[in-house]
């Protein structure tokens, strides 16, 4: 292994690591606010990449149907509960109608009309394609919270984890229905490569690193400066206390799922040009984000980023040395981490 390969692998590792870091951040965030260990995060990665690929192939992305169906069910549930409260068409219900029924319908109709008039999505500028894919996939996040987690928000972490895994199963199956078993690879955001200090760097690598860092800074600002961000932090620290201050846990839950879906979907679009994405690839990618988050004990954001970068690097070098065992090596990384945590752990307090 010469220096060139070392640098090349480091570049690979950091690129993947940055994506794992985004996912790890989302996982820590969702866990802090809702106590849900968000296993389906990976499906958003796959959905993001595959929806973009569908658009670029001028196919109707199946995720739109999923959005419409989930939206209808969400709205009917909201409507049912609102009616039981005997509270007419309140403000909350109007929001529900708008985002969960009208918006998906508009998307379906618009895409359908575009397709009927043989409009080529692939002619759109990249940024428009990205935005369109985000609009299709990201609203699924709060809907999944509404359907799967909101009815049992008080359940123990363990039960929420089982629900989470169940949602993952459903989404993987649906992914197979909509996208089929073939994988897709999307073209990079921009072609070509730069030479930085004598080392060739892919343009996509720069895109990944640059936008990941921007997204992390954005998240940081959101949590530090904005009212919504502060509300989420308050909920993470003490749900009852936040509730007494007028922050509804349901609102916090939906908001954090929206953010997680945004991060997951965007990560998928970033990784689409780097590796071929199949309907079930997201799970493994998400789990690597998990390993990063677990290194951070599911609580520390900077540690989660560091852990995820470590996972990316380890994976890159492992695939060079023992490619068929790289997954084993990456997932075995959590054993020493758990061991270290386990030896330090000494507390009798209940975490039911």
């Amino acid at each position, binding site marked *: 292994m010469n220096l060139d390969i070392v640098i090349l692998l480091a570049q690979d590792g950091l690129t993947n690591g940055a994506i794992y870091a985004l996912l790890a951040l989302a996982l820590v965030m969702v866990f802090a606010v809702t106590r849900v*260990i968000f296993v389906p995060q990976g499906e958003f990665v796959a959905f993001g990449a595959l929806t973009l690929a569908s658009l670029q192939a001028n196919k109707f992305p199946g995720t739109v149907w999923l959005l419409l169906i989930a939206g209808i069910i969400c709205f009917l549930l909201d409507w049912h509960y609102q009616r039981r409260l005997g509270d007419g068409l309140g403000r909350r219900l109007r929001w529900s109608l708008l985002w969960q029924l009208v918006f998906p319908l508009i998307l379906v109709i618009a895409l359908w009309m575009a397709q009927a008039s043989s409009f080529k999505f692939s002619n759109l500028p990249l940024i428009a394609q990205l935005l369109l894919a985000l609009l299709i996939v990201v609203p699924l996040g709060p809907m999944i919270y509404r*359907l*799967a987690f909101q*009815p*049992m928000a008080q*359940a*123990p*972490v*363990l*039960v929420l*984890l*089982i*629900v989470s*895994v*169940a*949602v*993952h*199963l*459903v*989404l*993987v*199956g*649906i992914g*197979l*229905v909509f996208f*089929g*078993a073939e994988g897709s690879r999307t073209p990079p955001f921009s072609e070509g490569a730069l030479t930085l200090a004598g080392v060739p760097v892919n343009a996509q690598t720069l895109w990944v690193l640059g936008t990941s860092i921007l997204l992390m800074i954005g998240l940081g600002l959101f949590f530090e400066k904005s009212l919504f961000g502060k509300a989420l932090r308050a909920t993470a620290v003490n749900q009852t206390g936040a509730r007494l201050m007028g922050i509804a846990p349901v609102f916090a839950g939906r908001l954090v799922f929206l953010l997680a879906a945004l991060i997951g979907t965007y990560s998928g679009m970033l990784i689409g040009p780097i590796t071929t994405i199949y309907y079930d690839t997201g799970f*493994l990618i998400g*789990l690597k984000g*998990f*390993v990063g988050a*677990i290194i951070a004990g*599911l609580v520390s954001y900077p540690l989660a980023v560091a852990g995820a970068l470590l996972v990316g690097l380890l994976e890159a070098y492992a695939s060079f040395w023992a490619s*068929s*065992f790289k*997954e*084993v090596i990456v*997932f*075995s990384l*959590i*054993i020493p981490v*758990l*061991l270290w*945590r*386990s030896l330090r*752990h*000494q507390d*009798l*307090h*209940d*975490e*039911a």
Partner: protein
Amino acid sequence: MANHIAMVALVALGLVLMTGVAGLTSFGQAAFVGLGAYVAAVLSTAFGLSPWLGLVAVMLMTVSLAFALGWITLRLSGHYLPLGTIAWGLSLYFVFGNLELLGGHTGLSSIPAIEIFGISLKSANAIYYLIWITLFAAMLLTDNLLHSREGRAIRALKGGVLVAESMGVNTARSKMIVFVLAALYAGVSGWLYAHYQRFVNPSPFSLHIGIEYLFMAVLGGAAQVWGALLGAGVVTLLKEWLQDLLPRLLGASGNFESIVFGLLLVLLLQHAPKGLWPHAVGLCRALVGSQRSEPPGTPVAAAYLERDVSLSGLPTRTRMVGTKRADLLKAQGIEKRFGGLIANQGISLELRQGEILALIGPNGAGKSTLFDLLTGVQALDAGEVFFCGEAIHGMQARDIAKRGLCRSFQHVRLLPEMSVLENIALGAHLRGTHGPLHAVLHLERREERALMLEAAHQARRVGLAEVLHLPAGSLALGQQRTLEIARALAADPLALLLDEPAAGLRFGEKQQLAELLRELRKDGLGVLLVEHDMAFVMGLADRVVVMEHGIVIAQGEPSVIQQDPRVIEAYLGVDLG
């Protein structure tokens, strides 16, 4: 198909024990099945060993691997174990698929059939009996375990480690027993699978199959032994049907049944978290038309009441009745901070034998914190605690309980689904000695009867004889508090720490409680009592300690305390006189 259901049910049984009973979860049981299957396959093909020797090797392998993995993850809080199981479930699957020794993705074939007394169990009909006998044996052993002292400790895990540890249960050990047993069942199932299919490849041991096993346990009824069989049957048949139906419906091939399974699992956890088994039982009863008015176990429980407790033969502590050992419990300079808040500072007190010491003070004075520090539930920042002259600060809660310092909790902590009798028997945990091996074989029945006898005796002592068989969660709050006292008494304590035992009690019940405490005092126990009812405290206590803002502001006899101007100002109000 029947063979398949039984093999799968064996794995689900282990998960029922973990998820439903002990509140642990594993997504990686399929990996243990795979481990069993591959060990069996390699030993019988490459090494030509007899399948029976293979079985021994499978059991050793799964037990030691489970022990190693459990040692790493079980001491951590709840969600690390399932996350760990996802990781090793994936890792082992990749190992199976990539090791040449194991045949890679094509797997290993021509595995010999099991032979028993010269009869080859080659055909599905022949191995049928072996598989089902194994399953029923495992169900019987599991049921035995659950109805034993170790089983109660395991069931107590679901109520959180705090109570269990305070009753002297080594919760890490109980979790390990469950985890290793579940892995063992999975390994044996893999051994059966390898010699039944006579061929193994990695696909039935993937993470998704591991999730399916968990689905079976949750669907069947995660707290019942029979639920495993029900869940395994329903899921296996449903999968068969869906794998046939869905690809035709969708016009494509693939494992679409996962969509239905996932949706069902979410709906089930939202609407029927106890699974199908309770509903199946209800349906059967409705069909047969039997009206079972009394809960199971009533006659048994009643029988315990009629026996004489002196026959129980449980070990008791030798109490020095009458002698007043002044340093039964002695605390010096105790300090505890939570960040900037000083909960306890420089607290010193002594509890004598045969004395009732009351600890009073306004809400937030640090009384319950002091209890937690004395009983090892929380670690103290500074100070010393001696019990019978032995330093106990820094000890684990269960080691302190073992020495005879027992407590009740301010916020009642019972296991609501277990009967009153079983809840009290949990308190006597440390007075039994038989381990899990005796429990699964029911070799500890004498001791079990003795523990039940003792529990019934304590129930009668506190006035709960009428409700022995009821689930503890169905009692009124006052009775639940009394139950906590009985549970502490079942441990045969030297000192009793009671946190607001009279709260929620009616006048008559309070008088009964006072009578009981006087009796305990006469028996030579030391009782430390936190209580807000002043009439109750002043009429009962020998001495009173008053706390405010984390420090002791006065102590002495009730009549002196009632006159103390600082106490009157801080707490009692001016006109109590």
